């Protein structure tokens, strides 16, 4: 049963299995275990970024496609919902309408970009995606009557997802099931389902072809796979999933702006999550996104404390100032890539394998 749900892609490491189980149950029970508004936001963000990073791994880790346009699709999903919520109607019909338009637009753009990759080299393809994504971000901020420009949009979401909503009077395990909790569980459920769908895709015959393309595209063509079709489909699929992740973000946050969706920083974050977790494993996205987002929060707090504690010492406080967290994170990243070139998952699996052989 579990084997089929995971599409036969078992963790192959006890430590990895334990880490995944821990993350799964923490997220499943987040509203009860971490009942603050802030913690619930973090948990929701983790779900969304696991999905986003996993969809990116389909391209980067499985197919060997380096794309910088992934946040564009994320943004299309968020803005699709945001615009319809704000301008048409904040109800479920609006979510479907905005989401539907967004997914159609994303898939069309992804197909177009995919077809571009017919003849160009990987590095040139990466440049094209960078150009398209930048152009799109500029377009989004220029079309301010539609998108709210740099300020973005604030809007109401379907009633069931608003903080004031109560599913029923009373509490479960001391928790009021309000709109926030509903929005969280919507995010959790959709992310989980789509993650399992991606896991199925990468373990399907199609997924094997993607790996063949990553390994040796020339030979994949020679044995009869028209690789441009496979790459294009992988692009469209990844784009559609990223779009759904964006829709979830728009519903959870109830505001959408370039910083939350379209920024290049987020693109880099996703890239780091996938690389740190382990490319071409999908489980890597789970660990990568979780650790990244926790580090992002936790490092800032620790550094704030450290900075205050060293306030008498020259240079140190400013080096440890929370604004420098990215510098430290960068160093951590370099260290992790240096010591675990196959990512955390790759490392855990090879350790487990060595253990079995001993």
């Amino acid at each position, binding site marked *: 049963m579990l084997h089929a749900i995971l599409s036969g892609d078992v963790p192959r490491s006890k430590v990895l299995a334990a880490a995944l189980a821990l993350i799964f149950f923490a997220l499943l029970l987040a509203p009860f275990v971490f009942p603050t508004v802030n913690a619930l936001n973090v948990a929701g963000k983790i779900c969304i970024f696991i999905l986003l990073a996993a969809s990116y791994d389909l391209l980067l880790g499985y197919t060997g496609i380096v794309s910088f346009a992934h946040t564009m699709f994320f943004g299309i999903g968020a803005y699709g919902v945001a615009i319809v919520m704000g301008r048409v109607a904040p109800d479920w019909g609006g979510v479907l309408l905005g989401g539907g338009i967004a997914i159609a637009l994303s898939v069309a753009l992804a197909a177009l970009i995919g077809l571009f990759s017919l003849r160009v080299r990987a590095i040139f393809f990466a440049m094209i995606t960078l150009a398209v994504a930048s152009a799109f971000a500029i377009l989004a901020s220029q079309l301010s009557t539609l998108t709210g420009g740099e300020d973005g949009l604030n809007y109401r979401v379907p009633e069931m997802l608003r903080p004031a909503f109560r599913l029923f009077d009373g509490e479960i395990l001391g928790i009021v099931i309000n709109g926030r909790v509903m929005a969280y569980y919507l995010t959790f459920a959709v992310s989980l389902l789509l993650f399992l769908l991606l896991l199925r895709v990468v*373990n*399907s015959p199609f997924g*094997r072809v993607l*790996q063949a393309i990553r390994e*040796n595209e020339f030979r*994949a063509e*020679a044995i*009869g*796979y028209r690789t441009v079709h496979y790459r294009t489909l992988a692009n469209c699929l990844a784009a559609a999933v990223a779009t759904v992740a964006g829709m979830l973000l728009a519903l959870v946050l109830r505001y959408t702006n370039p910083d939350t969706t379209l920024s290049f920083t987020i693109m880099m974050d996703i890239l780091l999550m996938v690389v740190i977790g382990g490319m071409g494993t999908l489980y890597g996205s789970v660990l990568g996104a979780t650790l990244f987002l926790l580090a992002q929060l936790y490092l800032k707090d620790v550094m704030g404390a450290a900075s205050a504690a060293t306030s008498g010492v020259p240079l140190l406080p400013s080096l440890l100032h929370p604004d420098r967290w990215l510098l430290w994170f960068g160093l951590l990243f370099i260290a992790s890539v240096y010591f675990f070139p196959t990512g955390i998952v790759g490392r855990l699996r090879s350790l487990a394998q060595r253990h079995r052989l001993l």
Partner: protein
Amino acid sequence: MLRTEGLTISFGGHVAVDAVSCEFQPGSLTSIVGPNGAGKTTYFNLISGQLRATAGRVLLGDEDITGLPAPYRTRRGLGRAFQLTNLFPNLSVLENVRLAVQARMGKGMNLLSMAISHRELSDAAWSYLERVALTQMAQSPAASLPHGDQRKLEVAILLALEPQIFMFDEPTAGMSVDEVPVILDLIRSIKAQGDKTVLLVEHKMDVVRSLSDRIVVLHNGKLVADGEPAEVIASPIVQQAYLGMGSGDE
């Protein structure tokens, strides 16, 4: 039946294959020989679609496939093994072959089933590994195989495509003496099926002599001799252009 008509390709000013017209019949094994740089591999690349001809045509049966991309030619029964080993290095030996079986059976666009649940694909892949005596290495990554085994895997992938036309580009190059017979016996068995077209590029003249129904000689991209093995080997042009250069073996 496979045919090339005036097949030509030039790189910059250099004509690597120069107006080669030739026909290959089912049930026959044709060796293509010639000195290094004669254009043999390039000729193969034009036939199997890795390169696009500057002029001339490639015909498969009645169909003009000159402009057809490589994967479509493969699906029409043109199978190619490469001179320089060309595998999926980090995938297992079995997976390398399984992918070829999967391509032939047209299962690649199946997104929602588990690859491991398609037993027919892995069973078939296993049978090709048996034919090249590689089952012991089935789970190892292709890149970890010694050179000779990588050459065998290359041939197993070709077998897995079940082509009508087999193109071998120096299949035994770099193999140890005791490994060569496995490959030669395989080529003989393909020939013995009677309906397959086999094209073989090979430098070892004893191999060429023992396997070929016919020999074609390329020199500077041109077809300079074509006929019965004994006759071609004895012809002055071959003695001069090829054997005369002392490249009878590697």
